[in-house]
Structures are given as C-alpha cells and as structure tokens.
C-alpha cells in the first residue's frame, strides 16, 4: 500500500514537471501542486497505520504496570504476562494449561518431600551469566520463604518453605518442609532469577529484570515497556525483534487502535466489542472460557447467611444464572462447581441450581422467611457486573428477599471486602487462577483463617490440607471431588454464577499468537507476516 502510494506520488510530480516544461502550467502552479502533494504525503493513507515493521509488535494491555520488577512481590496479572517473556521457569504452561519442560529437561520425585530436576545446559541470562543449579536454589529458597524476607513476598503464599540442594551444575533437588502436591504447577509461575542478582538484594531485583527469557527489557516508561529479542535465548531467538507493551485503560480506545492498525494485539476485549472485530476482515478475535469464577460470596461470619444454609440455598435457587451468563455472552458458561473450567479435578456438581423461584421460596421459608441484606459489587472491572447484580436483585426480591445493591468503584469495593469494618452481608466478585492446580483457588479463598468469606469450616480445611499434601493424582482427584461436593451441597459459602469469557484481538497478519487461560502471554513464537 505504501509503496504503490509512493509510486503514485512520484508519477504525479513527474507529470507536473512535464506540464511545466511544456509551459502548460506556470512555475507558481507547479510549486503549489508539489507542495500540496507533499502535504498529502504527510497524511498516512488508508491502512498505513497497519504497517508495523514486520518484526516489531505493539501489544495494548488493559492493566497498568507494576511499579517495580521484583517477580515474586506482586499478584498482578500484567506482571505474570510480561515476566513470562523476560524470565523462564523450570516448567512452562502451554495454552491448554498442561505443562512442558522449561529450564528443567526432566524431573522425578525422590520421596514425598524431595524432587530432583535435571537442568538444561547452555542457558544464559540476559547479562551473559550462565544459568546453573545455584540460580534455581537461590530463586526457590527466596520465593518459598525458606530464606525469610521482610515483608513476606507475595509469592511465598503459594509455597511451603523449600530448600534447594545443588547436586551439580545441572542437577538440583527441591526439598519441601512438608509434602506439597501443587509443586510442579507452582514452579510453572515461579520465575528463575540469577543467584548473583538475588545476592545483590531486593533493590537490585526491583530495578531491572535479568532473566533467561526470549526478550530483554530495554525501555521502562510508566505506561510503556519495550522488550527486545534476546539472541541467546535457549529456545532460539524469537521471531519478533521488538515487543512494545502499552497500557491503555479504556477498552474502546484499545479496540479503536487495533481497528485503525495502530496496534497488533490487544487484550481484554469485552463481549460488546466482539461484533466489531468479527465484522472486520483485517482483525481476528481469539476467545476462550477462562478459569475464572464470578460468584456471590456470603459473609459466613455474619448473620443472616453465616449460620443459615437454607437462606444461602434460597439465593442459589432464586437467581437466573443462565440469563446472567447470557448478559456477558461470548464463551461465558454457567458455573457448575467451585472449581472453574480448566482446573484439574474439576467436576460438574448436581443439582445445578437452575432458576426455580418455587424452590427458592421454599428454602427461604425453611430458613425463617424473607430477610434484608446488602450486596456490594464493583463497577468497571468485571464485565457486566452491574447488570448481573441488578438482575440478581430483581430475582431475589421477587422470591421474598429484600436485597440492597451497593455499587462501588474498585478501590472502594476492595476496601469493603477486606477493610476492618466489613460492611454488607454478601458481595459479588471474581477469582482467576494462574495455574490449573485447584489448591491455588481453594486455599486462598476458602481455607480458614483468612478465607474471603470469613468461613471457618473444619471439613473444608481438612480436605484442602489433604489436597495440598498429596502428590498422587488419584488421591487428589478423590479429595477435590469430595471438597467440591461439600462446598456445593453442604457449605455453599458462595454461589458460583459464571465462568468468564476471555477474549483478545489481533491483526490478521499476526501469526502464532495464542491466548493462555492462565493470564500469561508467550510472544516467542509470534510473528508478523
């Protein structure tokens, strides 16, 4: 497109010069004509904004960047996404959430507490230092809390204190304080840093990332991060030369940039925008059901719901969850378990709690009749949360509840959830998994103390602990099956509503781009054709 326009410009100038030589136009007219052609040249032609250089990709993201680069001290999805490209891990997640070898070529469990990893040779960090077992030891001991950190690093909550034992440069053993069933999945989001960087202290880790990943950080502006290809990456150099990540808060602005050709890939396409992408031949939509559950959570340490299972079941039967999922659309599914789609050992539960006002009224009567309660929900964060909660309010008030809906901006909603006063009797919210291991969801949300709901349930705690301690797939399947049934039928600390849609848009000339349900993005195989 640009070439043909350039040719057209040259031909136009040549034609004007011919006219001048023939005396058909004056010198003044010639100058005016060429000046206007010059002005036209300054304007990009149709589709010109789509002309990304073939090895430079611009990725627009909807989440603001974290202030520093310490890979173990945040829980931001954007952090996991960008780190995936800068660091490597012993094992890596594939787009279908299964695992594959990363820096470790193989691994075996030696005893219930010890795993041995054979490491890849010839790997180097971005600063040229060779990767060895000492780097794994330093990284895991820091991430797991074996080496204490003040304050405690966010990553540590996913680990048990784990000692690294260097067998030789290419062999390392990890020895946990007690059995840790999710260890391999946890390793899949634990970035490996250099032992020398870790020894330099936290400030050095926060200042600049130094990994073994496919890209190196070269530009670090508050809203734009620029990565360049690492030529010595262990999988071979990436196809892209530069990868630019830019934070753009507004979903419509991200979409406009994609459609206008000013971006190659955008994340967080909201369901309302799908039609615009589907109707444009130059862009593509990639969409999956994410391992994220949107639920109504009861405050289990408060009345009226805390001690009254009938009331909680009345809420479950009284909500039209099919319509709620339809409001969001896309690949959204009605939730049928407390474990989201894609999570290991997930099993659909029964009954499904289909919309049944009569059963809701009966459960409500058994629970002592209509009660008033307040539900807090965030606006502008989960797609269509406001509409879902309004439908919920209508549904529940029709069966006899007196539900007050309080819509809150995200910061205020987080304060409501976790602040000391804990107002309201229920809240609407979501939880996304960054690993397919069920422990990540249930231990954080449902194990007491510190459970989101304030629940303190001995059976849940016992099953969660047993699942965490077991490495036997059959045993874990039994444990998590029992846990899901208990949560669904006997405890119901939350009513799962839907499993979320996750969509991303990209230009048609981008190939190799895949959407990872676990919130990471690997740009190593991506290219612009």
């Amino acid at each position: 497109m640009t070439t043909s326009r350039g040719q057209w410009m040259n031909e136009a100038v040549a034609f004007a010069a011919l006219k001048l030589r023939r005396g058909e136009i004056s010198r003044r007219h010639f100058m005016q004509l060429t000046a206007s052609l010059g002005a036209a040249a300054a304007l990009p032609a149709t589709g010109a904004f789509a002309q990304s250089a073939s090895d430079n990709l611009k990725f627009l993201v909807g989440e603001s960047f974290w202030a520093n680069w310490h890979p173990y001290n945040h829980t931001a999805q954007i952090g996991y996404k960008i780190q995936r490209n800068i660091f490597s891990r012993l094992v890596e997640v594939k787009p279908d959430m299964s695992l594959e070898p990363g820096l470790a070529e193989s691994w075996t469990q030696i005893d219930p507490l010890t795993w041995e990893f054979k490491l890849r040779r010839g790997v180097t960090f971005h600063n040229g230092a060779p990767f060895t077992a000492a780097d794994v030891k330093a990284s895991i001991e820091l991430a797991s809390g074996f080496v204490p950190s003040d304050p405690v690093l966010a990553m540590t909550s996913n680990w048990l204190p784990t000692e690294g034992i260097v067998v030789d440069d290419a062999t390392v053993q990890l020895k946990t304080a007690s059995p840790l069933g999710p260890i391999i999945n946890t390793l899949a989001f634990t970035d490996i840093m250099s032992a020398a960087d870790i020894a330099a202290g936290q400030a050095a880790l926060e200042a600049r990332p130094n990994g073994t990943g496919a890209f190196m950080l070269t530009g670090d502006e508050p809203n734009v991060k620029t990565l360049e290809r690492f030529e010595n990456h262990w999988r071979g150099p990436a196809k892209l030369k530069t990868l630019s990540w830019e934070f753009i808060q507004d979903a419509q602005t991200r979409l406009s940039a994609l459609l206008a050709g000013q971006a190659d890939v955008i994340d967080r396409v909201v369901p309302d925008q799908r039609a615009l992408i589907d109707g444009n031949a130059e862009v593509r939509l990639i969409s999956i059901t994410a391992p994220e559950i949107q639920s109504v959570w009861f405050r289990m340490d408060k009345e009226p719901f805390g001690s009254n299972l009938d009331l909680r079941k009345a809420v479950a039967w009284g909500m039209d969850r099919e319509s709620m999922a339809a409001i969001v659309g896309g690949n959204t599914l009605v939730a049928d378990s407390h474990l989201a789609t894609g999570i290991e050992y997930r099993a659909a539960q029964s009954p499904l709690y289909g919309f049944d006002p009569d059963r809701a009224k009966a459960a409500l009567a058994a629970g002592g009749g209509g009660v008033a309660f307040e539900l807090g929900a965030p606006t502008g964060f989960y797609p269509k949360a406001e509409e879902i909660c309004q439908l919920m309010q209508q549904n529940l008030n029709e069966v006899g509840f007196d539900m007050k809906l309080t819509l809150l901006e995200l910061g205020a909603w987080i304060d409501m959830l976790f602040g000391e006063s804990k107002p309201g009797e229920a809240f609407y919210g979501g939880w996304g998994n960054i690993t397919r291991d069920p422990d990540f969801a249930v231990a954080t949300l449902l194990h007491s103390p510190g459970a989101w709901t304030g629940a303190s349930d001995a059976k849940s705690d016992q099953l969660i602990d047993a699942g965490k301690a077991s490495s036997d797939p059959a045993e874990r399947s039994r444990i998590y099956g029992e846990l899901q049934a208990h949560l669904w039928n006997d405890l119901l600390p939350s009513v799962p509503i839907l499993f979320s849609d996750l969509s991303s848009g990209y230009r048609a000339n981008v190939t190799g781009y895949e959407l990872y349900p676990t919130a990471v993005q690997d740009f190593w195989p991506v290219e612009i054709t």
Partner: protein
Amino acid sequence: MRATGSGRSGGVARFLLRRFAQALFVIFGVACVTFFVLRLVPGDPARLMVPPGSSEAVVEAIRVKLGTNLPLLEQFWAYLVGLVQGDLGTSFRYERPVLDLVLSVFPATLALGGVAMLFSLLVAVPLGIAAAAKPGGVTDRIVLVLAIVGQSLPNFWIGVMLVLFFSIRLGWLPAIGNETAVSYILPVLTLSAVLIATLIRTVRQSMLEALSEDYVRTARAKGVPWSRIFFVHALKNAAIPLVTVVGLQIGFVLGGAFVVELIFNWPGVGLLALQAISTRDFPVVQGVVMLVAILFVVANLLVDIAYAYLNPRVRLGAEQ
C-alpha cells in the same frame, strides 16, 4: 478628575497585588480541599497494592512505606511543607517523584489545549463576525445551528465518532497517540467542538451589542467606511467579553482534555490523573490538581491584566 501617571501605575500595582494575593489563597484552598477529599473517598491505596486477603500486618507494612499510617494532620503538614519547597511527593504506583511525572506529561496537555484554543478562535471569531454582520440572514442562521449542534453533542461522543469515521473507516488519521502532527487533528476537533460553539455565540453577541452603540451610529453618519467601523471600532470593543470567556474556557479545555486524552490515549495530565485516581495514587492526583489549579489561576490573572489593558474603567476602578 484624572489620575496622575504615578498614581495610575500605583493603582495598577495595587490591583495586581490584590489579584496575586487572591490567587495564592485560591491555590492554598485547592491544596486543602484536594488533600482531604481524596482521603475521604473509600479505598485504601495499600490494600490495592497487596494480594487479596493479605494479612493486616502486610497491609500495615505497605502503609508505613507509603506514609498513610501517620495521623492525617501530620500527613497534611508534610504535604504543605513539601509543596512550599516544590516537592509534590513520590508516586505510590510508579515510585517516581510526582513533579517529574507531571512535568513529563504536561507539555502534551498544554500543546493539545493550546492548539485547540487557537483553532477554536480561528474558526469562531470569523464565523461570529460573519453572523453578526447580517443578523437573521442565511449565514447567521447556519452559524447559529452549527453553534447549537456543537454545544449539544458531548465531546466523548464526537471523539468516538471521529475515530470510527476517519481512523477506522477511512484510515486517514491515527486513532491514538501524539507522535505526529496529524495526530492532533481528531483530538483538537473533539476538544474544540463545544469551545467553538461557545465562542461563536460570544463573538456574535458582543459584535451585535457593539454595533448598536452610539459611536457606531456617529461613525456611520460621518461617512466612515463600514469595514473600518466593523473591524476597527466594533471588534476592539467586542474583544473584551471574548477575552473573559476565553479565560474562563481554559478551565473547560483542561477538564475536556481529561476525556479527550482517555479517548485518544493522549499522554497528558488527564490520562495520568485518571489512572492515578483508580489506583488511589494520592500524590499524583494532588500534583495534577495543583498544577491545573495553578494554571487556571494564572490564566485568570492574565485575563484580569488583559481586561485592565483593554478596558481603562477597570484600572480606574482599581485606583478608586
């Protein structure tokens, strides 16, 4: 009785001094209101920086690091002391000095606002004059319809429509960013739409009032050419209310820039402030508000000075 030269300059100095003192008071008021209102809004910045369900000890450690654990008055005093020294604090989110952050994006907003204001004047003044030249005529009616349309449409809608048509459908202009000169076209059009409408009405009305004055009738009776009456005598007097409106519209331009910067991802103070509000980055929000307030106050001070220059009665009033 005429004032002497020295008496006149002393009066103007007193006038300017009074205006300057008022400006300082306004800026201090803005600092107070911004600081306390931000802290009244629910949302703990420390909680937004830790994993959901983190222990109170972890949250408290972050509060200590941010300084939000200190008593409110102590925080306020530290803020005021810093402000006097030109230190707006450090961003919670970006961990960079706020002044550096704000100053790094301020030129983009200034350029957008300046070009929009200039463009609006270039469009609105001729159209307003043309409309006033023959009230009730075809030109007047067309211009008034345009003004009504411009004032009726919200700028976020105009912005999105312009992007859909010129960037996505035609592919002529960029949808986001400020990298090239052509990047200014759509944001400036969006920001100018309402401004042009307001200025057209002001110019038209002022010109109509000026043209109905006795001195215009006298000039016409003396045979002064219509064009000279129109552009020299009437226009200079009509410029006085225009200057006032332009001064007041600087606030609108800065406010409108927040929306326009979001739509076009224009890297200015509006975009920075919106991001800071959602993450409860108090120092950045305070810094942006202070900068905008200072700009607004200075602009109004300049308008007062210009007004005093254009209208001698203001100076005389100040002297009296």
